[in-house]
């Protein structure tokens, strides 16, 4: 997987590159918008990471131009501005995800991985993970043939985890998806709900499905994920 990182702040670019390389990604770095556009035009990248405040060519303009050439490539925006208006403007320009500085590197990694495998989101009506069965039409959950009663929030949380089975989801992603922006900064709410969900889904059974990924978030999977 080859990633282009367009970031003018040298130190930020450095730790992102090191971190991504450790995850076995090939990373090219560009220092301004113009250079980024040239590199994105010349090489086929699997993903672009673009900072918004760039010299020569702004991040938003860069996204717009890249989209004009290659509509498919996933784009993650990094920015020090998190006003809602900025977010809307960049999603309209063609960004796929948005991370506000200062972000946790693990958060960036989780989002990159989610974007690179975006097509794999399970949209089936019934999701099956080991002996856990989630009926998305009836909002019913069974495990080992036994019906499990969940509250609306617990169900929403389980469905989000299950439709991304095998994929690590960060607490922030879970808050944004299952709750909404108003709950940002209240990430302990995720831990509380996951604990409750585990009590109902996992505790009565020998095989545990929900796994904690240290300092990142949670994943639901048949096998233990590293």
């Amino acid at each position: 997987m080859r990633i282009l990182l367009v970031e003018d702040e040298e130190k930020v670019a450095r730790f992102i590159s090191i971190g991504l390389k450790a995850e076995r990604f090939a990373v090219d770095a560009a220092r301004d918008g113009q250079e980024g556009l040239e590199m994105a035009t010349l090489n086929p990248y699997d993903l672009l990471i673009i900072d918004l405040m760039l010299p020569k060519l702004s991040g938003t303009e860069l996204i717009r131009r890249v989209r004009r050439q290659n509509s498919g490539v996933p784009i993650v925006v990094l920015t020090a501005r998190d006003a809602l208006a900025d977010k809307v403007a960049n999603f309209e320009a063609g960004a796929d995800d948005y991370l506000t500085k200062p972000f946790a590197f693990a958060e960036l990694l989780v989002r990159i991985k989610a974007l690179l495998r975006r097509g794999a989101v399970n949209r089936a009506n019934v999701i099956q993970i080991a002996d856990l069965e989630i009926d998305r039409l009836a909002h019913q959950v069974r495990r080992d043939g036994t019906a499990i009663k969940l509250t609306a929030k617990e169900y929403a949380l389980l469905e989000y985890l299950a439709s991304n089975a095998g994929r690590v989801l960060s607490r922030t992603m879970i808050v944004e998806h299952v709750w909404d922006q108003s709950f940002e900064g209240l990430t302990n709410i995720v831990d509380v709900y996951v604990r409750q969900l585990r009590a109902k889904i996992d505790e009565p059974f020998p095989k545990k499905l929900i796994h904690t990924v240290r300092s990142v978030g949670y994943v639901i999977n048949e096998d233990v994920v590293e």
Partner: protein
Amino acid sequence: MNSQSIHFRLIVWYAGVLLVVLIGFGAFTYTTLRFFSKQVLQETMDHRAQKIVELLASDAAAQDPDYVPREIVKRYDPAANDRFVRITRGDGGLVFLSSAPANHSFIPREVGAFRGTPAPSGAYQVTTPEKTQLLIATQRIHVGSEDYLVEVGGTLAATEQVLHGLLMTLLLGLPVILGVVIAGGYVLTKRALQPVQTMMRAAQEITLSHLGRRLPTLQSDDEIAHLAVVLNQMIARLDESFQNTQRFTSDASHELRTPLTIMRGELEALLLGRSLEPDLRDALGSLLEEVERLVRIVEGLFALSRLDTGEAQTERVRLDLAKLAETTADQMCLLAEVKHIDLIRETSQRVEIEGDRARLKQLVVNLLDNAIKYTPENGRVALAVRSENSTALLEVSDTGPGVSEVALPHVFERFYRADEVRSREIGGAGLGLSIVQSICAAHGGSVTAANTPPRGCRFTIELPLAPRN
């Protein structure tokens, strides 16, 4: 009219001073007039008494005993002119007494005899049984072997009448003059203070979010026009410093993000990458925790600065606050449940307000989170939404330890910590309640905190209701 207003006080002072001046002037006029008219009368009487004395002393009087009475009647005609003339000898024998006046205002015979130390000349005042005031001048003369006392008097009736008329005029005129003065003063001060009223209304409309506005300046060149100019200069300085503060907060939060990103990223890379000595790992982990706290503070500050600039309020929709609170409580109820806290909701009444849904939700989240955090296990948190008069009320009360009275007025201040130790344990950024207050202010409302003895405290949000359709 407000008894403390300049308007009222000006009129009261104006009328009061005028009343005192008028009463003083009236009293002075009255006494002066009385004094002078009496003096004039007395001088006339003295003069006549002198003339009669001269008659008594004349040769003609010595030859003809009827000379004096004849001359008196001829010259002064006391009966026709309401005058009183009496001449008595030293032994009390009556020499002459004028006849009763035409208007019968007094009977000369009944006017009491002069009792006093004999003096060459003098005057006294008597009241006749008919209640007529007589001013009588006296003269003594020694002619031959006889002493004579000459008394010449006139009634004070005319003088009294004039004085009475003056008094009536003053008593009737005073209220009329006062009335005119108060009415005139009312109109004048109202006109003079009209620009102040206009300025007051304009000033009321200048809030933090409308500091760009100015007071209306007048075309005139008076003190009030100058006041408006001076106040406008002050507002301009306020506006500038407020904008500077906002820009600083915004820029500072922005500039802080990049170094924080680097610190966080580098620390995370160090902690994830290699196997480290336990001491070093602990130190780096602690550093990372602190960086994350800084991140939360910066984010809170940034959120506040956006609320202050009005940038955050992007939508203004009609919504049911009770429903919004109910849904939010639903989404958080597990936080309460794990602490065995009873989360009571009184949100059945429909309460419509206008505002930014996301911000209002954040307000409820912050208040509930705060209440749940500080309430011990098995406690109770109550959320109530209702409308009262034209206000939407949202109350969150808990059974936590409450807030000390000293800290109560400060709980909404940025970075204020009611209890250092407890807050550190829970690890908030100290901005949650400030954000609540800013959201309230952005919606034209307010938030207050109060203790609810014996334990716990209550936060009350007041927001304007949406206008009826």
